[in-house]
């Protein structure tokens, strides 16, 4: 029966797609394999797809300039499909079967936590490019995103300042998982230390994928009647759209109640009509709108790459903080490999400490000698009508990361590895 045949083929194709079993590896002599572990399907694809593309672009760039130690880099792309156990499975595949020298990957903290045991067991090397809650320091991981003191704390300090609106009351609003919970725990302790009592802090959580913010916005409105209020949002990725839409329609503007978000960047705003959001804030270590020659070249390269590879919506591609962190991380890894003259994980880890790189964020930034985190500048940007950010505040220079926040009890003793 012909129809049965079609059905069978369709099933086979979907099973293949499902297993995420489509590595782009071709066998070639004398290359260094680089694993890319980002979700290309499922809920996290919205954020992670562009990280895969920027990693491939960086590999092309490094190869075009002669590769690493005379060898070309070869990307091995796998799709863990936004499924946390699958992340561990794919990581094992990359390290054990593909024998990759290094892996660039993960976005959510839970995916990172699920691959950690694999990297420790097989002594792999992971570059993690996203801002996170801290409270972790692994020998096998380099964190190129921000720790809480490089994003959350400066942002709240800004809200407390005269320019930021001198907020007296805070709504800590987040999606219910480890990153918002831990960040809010740190922020609550920080706010208490600044003399804001618990009665003036309202902590609210929503489930993943929450899309009905009516009650929450009505509550924010009521809460803000009691004094100058600011909202600190750790809402995950795309739940932000319904939240901001509700906020705009309910008539709460940025001059009444400013919202500072830690997970909203240029990429997320591509899917939003940004006009009602003008004046709301985001805190990152990089914005596309930062003006310097390195960043201009980076944006130019990315746009050209998107066009050449015919990525979806290539005309409107943007750069964002985790993309920059991926780019910087890969270049630093290249430098470390060249310094160590080998891709051996232990030697590369040793060579990583103290590496410097002229990053698109406007500074020559440095990998800390001991704590596996980058020293990063902090920027606070206001959302503009075109979905870009206008920087309203920045640190004087790069800030050293504190993965173990001093605002969580018991962290004093945990500092180094």
């Amino acid at each position, binding site marked *: 029966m012909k*129809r049965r045949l079609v*059905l069978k083929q*369709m*099933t086979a194709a*979907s099973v293949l*797609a*499902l297993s995420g079993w489509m590595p782009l590896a071709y066998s070639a002599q004398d290359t260094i394999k680089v694993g890319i572990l980002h979700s290309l*399907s499922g*809920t996290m*694809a*919205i954020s992670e*797809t*562009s990280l895969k593309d920027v990693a491939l672009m960086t590999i092309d760039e490094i190869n075009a300039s002669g590769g690493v130690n005379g060898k070309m880099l070869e990307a091995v792309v796998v799709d863990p499909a936004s499924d946390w156990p699958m992340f561990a499975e794919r990581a094992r595949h990359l390290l054990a079967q593909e024998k990759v020298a290094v892996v660039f990957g993960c976005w959510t903290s839970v995916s990172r936590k699920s691959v950690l045991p694999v990297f420790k067991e097989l002594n792999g090397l992971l570059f993690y490019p996203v801002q996170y809650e801290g409270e972790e320091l692994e020998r096998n991981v380099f964190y190129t995103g921000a720790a809480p003191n490089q994003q959350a704390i400066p942002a709240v300090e800004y809200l407390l300042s*005269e*320019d930021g*609106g001198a907020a007296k009351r805070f709504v800590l609003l987040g999606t*219910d998982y480890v990153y918002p919970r831990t960040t809010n725990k740190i922020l609550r302790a920080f706010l208490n230390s600044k003399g804001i009592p618990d009665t003036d802090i309202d902590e*609210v*959580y*929503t*489930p993943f*994928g929450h*899309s*009905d913010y*009516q*009650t*929450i916005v*009505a*509550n924010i409105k*009521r809460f803000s*009647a*009691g*004094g100058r209020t600011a909202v600190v949002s750790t809402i995950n990725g*795309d739940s932000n*759209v*319904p939240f901001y*839409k*509700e906020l*705009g*329609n*309910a*008539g709460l503007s*940025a*001059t009444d109640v400013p919202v500072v978000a830690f997970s909203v960047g240029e*990429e*997320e705003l*591509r*899917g939003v*009509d940004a*006009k*009602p959001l*003008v*004046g709301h804030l985001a805190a990152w270590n990089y914005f596309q709108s930062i003006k310097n020659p390195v960043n201009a070249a980076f944006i130019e390269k990315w746009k050209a790459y998107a066009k050449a590879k015919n*990525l*979806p*919506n290539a005309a409107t591609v943007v750069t964002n903080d985790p993309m920059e962190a991926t780019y910087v991380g890969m270049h630093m890894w290249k430098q470390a490999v060249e310094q160590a003259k080998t891709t051996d994980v232990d030697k590369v880890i040793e060579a990583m400490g103290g590496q410097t790189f002229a990053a698109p964020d406007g500074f020559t930034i440095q990998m800390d000698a001991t704590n596996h985190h980058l020293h990063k500048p902090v920027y606070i940007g*206001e959302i503009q*009508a075109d979905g870009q950010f*206008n920087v*309203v505040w920045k640190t004087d220079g790069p800030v050293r990361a504190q993965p173990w926040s001093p605002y969580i009890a018991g962290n004093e003793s945990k500092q180094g590895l």
Partner: protein
Amino acid sequence: MPTSAHSPLFLLYVPFRAFIFALVVMWMTPGAAQAAPAEPLDPAIIARLADSRTEAKLAAIAALGQSANPLASQTLEALLAGVLNVVAPDTVLIDTGAGRGLNVASHTEQIMPPEAQPIMVNNRLRRAIQSALAGSRLFSESVATRLAAARGLQNSTDLEHLPLLEKALKNEAQADVRRALEVAEANLALQSPDADVRRDAAVRLGQTRSAAFRSTLVRIAEPRPDGTYAETDESVRAAAASAVRMIENHQQIVALTGHLYFGLSLGSVLLLAALGLAITFGLMGVINMAHGELLMIGAYTTWLTQTLFRQWFPEWMNWYVVAALPAAFLITACVGMVLERTVIRWLYGRPLETLLATWGISLILMQTVRTLFGAQNVEVSNPVWMSGGFTVLGGLVLTYNRLIIIVFSLFVVALVWVLLNRTRLGLFIRAITQNRRMADCVGVPTGRVDMLAFGLGSGIAGLAGVALSQLGNVGPDLGRAYIVDSFMVVVLGGVGQLAGTVIAAFGLGTINKFIEPYSGAVLAKIMILVLIVLVVQRRPQGLFAPRGRSVE
């Protein structure tokens, strides 16, 4: 060209959020004619405006706010709208569109040079501008502008505003603007040295029943931590206390009405998401896991329609949603019918295989969309008539998009009801639902009716997709967020019952919204699931099951 603060051209620059408001203003403004002739601005002020420091800009804004020159308020409005450009420290231009700018130093129009940079404002500057503009806005020709300015001053504690308010009250004829001004005046009168004035002000603030004044009044009525009172006069304290009680009672009513409205709104979203499924799953018995993806296709059709309109009919942009409705219905109905003919038809009566096959289809559809349009969400903007909201009961904001969606969901229910109960196709569908073989025997073309019914269910899902695109994200994963909720509603309502679906959707929405304020959104969701488990255990057939022996 005569430029005045109220020329319609200028009003195009009012920020988007105030767009409707701007339309009203444009309609009400005669057009030209301005009393005082505009003069060039003081160069010292211009230099401060062009300065990069916030403090310098604040000084310039304060100076401009005090000036009676109409060009000063025009400059402030332009600064607020982000169309004030700096070319050199002594040259500041208001962008008037078409590559031209109005030089505020010489009050002449000139060509906008390419090096012009818009002056950036932050929230602190925005607040300062709004406060500085309050003066000129209070005497605007437009009622809406005056009302907004008066409302904006209601929380002001700046005594400098008092003479301004008194002057405005003297000139004001409109009743609602007068009321708003009186409230603003009462708030300032709380600082009066005269106890009678203060008592009277407290009473008046209580009568507004607005939560905005509660904290001020509480500070008057209640003792400070050290036991002393900020307010020395006991009668004022008593008046404030009774005002607080009045506000609190009223706010409780507002909150309850709010829960009810939010619940109806959530219910309407659930209803829209579930209605298509009520036909394909409820009436036809197909466990359609790809239902969510049909919603998603409807939402993507909205986005495509918006893109088309932007390209070809920008003047009709406001009505693209209306055009998207038939388009989404047709496209999803076609997708549904193709699915039915190619896959589902062969699996009738085998629920497990149907479930797996449709789940596979849902993955294929999602990945197809991802390949075609990218993994990122796409931008669907609300048309002007669906943005914003209006306030009822002095505290509850009803947003237009949700209000329209409640009405739309009822419209779709009515449409489905008419189709099922008043048309020949509906008769056939019901006949097949009750007894497929008997219907076949009496000559109902079951195959064709199955296809059409599935197409109808899918088309309804497409309509829902259009509505959902106005509330949240449009991305390949859109369907995932709604599939569980849709099945929940249909199963709870009772398979095969349209009325059951409607009642279950509104019931779940309302219960959820009444629980949420007390337990938080996470726990509310869990409690709803537990509730459904309990109900379905007691009544496996759902709340409203079809009666009779016809059901297999």
